[in-house]
């Protein structure tokens, strides 16, 4: 203890406690803080992983309870109702078939496409001028609304007698591409809600158009291109 000779004797008595205090203080400020930080970080990670696990577990359970075949059928029906591709021709074909079946003579039609944003569906507006009895017009409207693709008659004008009325209809049909990104694996997913199930029931109950298949004729040359 010779090196402490410069200290007066009475201060040397407090040397040990002071060194211990200082040592503990320094240890708390360095190692102690580091360890507490580590522990807080670990607990935070544990909490995050726990939350993710709960989410994944719920997701696995939700998906495990779904019947693959039923899901396939539902998606097929829903995709027919709201086609992933432009449904103009599909809608026109359906309208034409239903008109034929219900006795409506279509004299003129006009088609306008409306492209919307990502969240809203693209739509096809079909304006139809036709003729038929009132009851056949009603059957036609009901037929259009109960057949895929999902269409809605938004405007009706009828003029004439009950037996033969001229009719102007505005029919809106929707389509939209299927989303390409399905979200990350830890994105929560819920089964269909009650309201969604009700809509799905309506979609699956839509009838398939009779003879709705298109056969696109191959382009072929004509002898006289100006004569039809």
């Amino acid at each position, binding site marked *: 203890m010779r090196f402490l000779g410069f200290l007066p004797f009475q201060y040397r*008595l407090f040397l040990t406690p002071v060194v211990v205090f200082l040592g503990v203080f320094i240890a708390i400020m360095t190692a102690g803080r580091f360890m507490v930080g580590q522990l807080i970080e*670990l607990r935070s990670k544990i909490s995050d992983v726990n939350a993710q696990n709960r989410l994944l577990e719920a997701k696995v359970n939700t998906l495990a309870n779904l019947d693959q075949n039923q899901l396939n059928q539902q998606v097929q029906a829903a995709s027919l109702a709201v086609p992933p591709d432009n449904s103009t021709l599909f809608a026109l074909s359906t309208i034409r078939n239903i008109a034929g079946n219900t006795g409506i003579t279509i004299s003129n039609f006009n088609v306008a496409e409306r492209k919307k944003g990502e969240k809203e569906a693209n739509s096809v507006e079909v304006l139809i001028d036709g003729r038929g009895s009132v009851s056949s017009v009603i059957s036609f409207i009901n037929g259009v609304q109960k057949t895929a693709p999902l269409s809605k008659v938004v405007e009706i004008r009828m003029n004439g007698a009950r037996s033969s009325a001229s009719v102007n209809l505005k029919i809106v049909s929707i389509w939209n591409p299927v989303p390409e990104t399905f979200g990350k694996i830890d994105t929560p997913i819920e089964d269909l809600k009650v309201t969604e199930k009700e809509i799905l029931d309506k979609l699956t109950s839509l009838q398939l158009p009779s003879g709705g298949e298109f056969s696109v004729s191959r382009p072929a040359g004509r002898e006289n291109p100006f004569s039809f």
Partner: protein
Amino acid sequence: MELRGGRNRINLLPQELRDIRGLRFFSGIAARISLAILGIYLATTIGLFLAIFLSSQELTNLENTKNGLTNNLEAVRNKEELLFTLKNRVSLAGVVYDKQTSLPSEAIERVLSILPADLELKSIENQDGKNVFLTVTASDSKAVLNFLTILENDQRFSSASLNTFGLREEGVYSLSLELK
């Protein structure tokens, strides 16, 4: 040298040692406290080490569970894609079904269902399931009165406004109405 009870009390310690007797007492207390703090610190440090070790173990276990769940999820990823597509289609269709409570066809059917046989329908119009505009003709006033009574008694229409009412030269009554 102190005088106490008639006896002499002699302190033989050197002067500098005599001065630190009180300090020695306090230094002893300080040494004990510092040792206690050191002990507490060491115990806390051991506790922290233990907590960090156990938390690391817990985290590893949870990560393993997460990996297992992720693998399980990968196996049913196809179902997730189908459900996602289904929800997307349903939400798009929901826009069509939610836009209105009543469809034009329903509104038209409602009106046609109350139209008596002695009235002739001339025109009917509806947009977005709202008001129905109707023009009818009747051969006599009795048929007009009958129709208006039916309208008055029908609970499905909240209001009916008679927009025009006329008698043509050929004796035919013509009415145009707006029904809500």
